[in-house]
């Protein structure tokens, strides 16, 4: 797993300066800045919402909505050292929450679990594994789910995850352990062996 790369003071300052400049252009609704933001973060936002939704089309739609909402409300974005990605993830979090509430009100929760399908590019045997893992992730709290998404699905470091979740690194480590333990318990319930293989 990738860990936070230690940047030199110069590269940190440069990165911060670039991010701030991009954020300022984003606030001014500069289309070019937003194209750059979209290309940098769409896949991450997609992956973030994907595991809480039934299929890729829903994830595509919701992730697109995230950027549309962000662009429409660009003037409200206040750059205070928080990356724009954190803002996007916050919008995504709220959208997913609202989406699931609507599904729940319509009685779709069971269907959501049963119809989850994930593209499996290589191993057919992985389908069951995916299904069980996704089902296990549904047992997580929202914070735990977010930590798992950032750390293992999006390959973010503890430090990056802490920044995006506005938590301390210790809190992220604690959430991470609790989340993995909760998933392990859920997987155990479907006779999932401890080595991760059937």
């Amino acid at each position, binding site marked *: *797993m990738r*860990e936070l790369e230690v940047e030199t003071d110069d590269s940190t300052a440069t990165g911060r300066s670039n991010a701030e400049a991009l954020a300022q252009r984003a606030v*001014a*609704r*500069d*289309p070019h800045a*937003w*194209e750059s933001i*979209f*290309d940098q973060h*769409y*896949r991450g936002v*997609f*992956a973030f919402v*994907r*595991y809480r939704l039934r299929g*890729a089309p829903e*994830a*595509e739609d919701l*992730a*697109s909505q995230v*950027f*549309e909402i962000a*662009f*429409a409300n660009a003037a409200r974005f206040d750059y205070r050292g928080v990356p724009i990605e954190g803002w996007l993830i916050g919008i995504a979090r709220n959208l997913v929450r609202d989406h699931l509430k609507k599904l729940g009100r319509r009685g779709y929760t069971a269907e959501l679990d049963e119809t989850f399908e*994930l*593209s*499996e*590019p*290589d191993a057919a045997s*992985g389908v069951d*594994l*995916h299904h069980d*893992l*996704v089902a*296990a*992730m549904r047992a997580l709290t929202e914070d735990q789910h977010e930590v*798992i998404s950032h*750390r*293992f*699905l*999006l*390959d973010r470091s*503890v430090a990056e995850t802490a920044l995006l979740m506005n938590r301390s690194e*210790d809190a992220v*480590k*604690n959430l*991470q*352990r609790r989340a*993995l*333990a909760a*998933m*392990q318990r859920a*997987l155990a319930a479907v006779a999932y062996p*401890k*080595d*991760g293989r059937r």
Partner: protein
Amino acid sequence: MSTDRHDELLQRSLASGAVPADTTASERAELEPLLAVASAATRLRPAVQAESQAALPTARARFQRYVAAESAAAVLPGSVPPGPRFLGRVFAANRALTMAVSVGVIGLFALLAVVASQSFGGVETAAAQVLDESDYAQIQGVITATTGEGATRTATLSSDFGDLQLALGELPGITNADQVLDTSTLKAGDSVTVAGTVTKKDNTTSVAARSVAVGKSNANPAAKPRLIQLRELRKGLEGRVTVFAVAKDGKAARVVLDTGNGEQFIVPVAAGSLAELLSANEALVGRRVTVSHEVGSPKGEFTLTAVPLSTAPVGSRLGLSGVAGVILSREGNFLRVQTERGPAQVLLTAQTRIVIGPGADLSVERIRTGNAAVGHAVVIQGGVDRTTGRLTADVVWVGASTR
């Protein structure tokens, strides 16, 4: 084992891929299943990456359409900040230059004044004199006949200045209040406001329509007004604009002003005063203006000042939008303009008329073919393409550099 220690051990295990050697047997027993779950979770990653990659092109196109529509919305009626604040700032720093370059425009208006120096005896002559080949024009009238379908659809427009032929083939639709209707719905008896490019062949004057709005028109073809070329300022001259036209080279901007007492004046418009009028989200036609002559300005060149109306002018139905800002860049046929509401993309076409304002020190050719206008103040009036959200420029007024 404390919570903190367990968290740290797990983190070290995840970072190295193995349980650290300094763990106890019970700690190892707790950590190993968690490592296995984490390992399994990471195996989901390629599938999601593949899905997100596959979704990217469609999502990007959707977002680009959204951004374009939102950017255009920033300049739609009611959302554009009034021009004077912006223009005032631009010209405050360039007033001397403004005056100097104004002199260059004078000769052209003087030429127009010579050409159209007499009252016109008949309406056919009037139409010929008011509108020239390749002019961009806004005009009102009443449809008296329609023929053809689709690309060949035409209509006859009876205006204050005689009959004009309207070519409707390239018109995407006509606007009626908030609706966009098919051109086939246009019928005899409709009062319309038209914007387009003038063509002349034999004794027929035509307008290739780019925007047509149906609605109550102030045009009164039966009136046969008396047309007067304005060469000297008439004190208190005020009226409604019935025609606005700009020549192909962006010069000879003029309006026809209906005073309401049977007289209409052809008024050459100072390039400087056009900026203010174009920044509005409505056609010049139908607006009420006063005419003045700035002290020190050359003879035959007049300044128009819009009179606030309690109701929207008839021409507002054309759906024209005004943008005021500074040109940020030129990319192909698109100008990127920084407005007070954010950047806006504007399409220049062969039919776009470019007016060089005071202090610009540019030529239309340089603007059309390069980046010469980047950094210059600009006011643009045109129509928003509802499909792409982009503004297609009818008239572009370029002012002094802001750099």
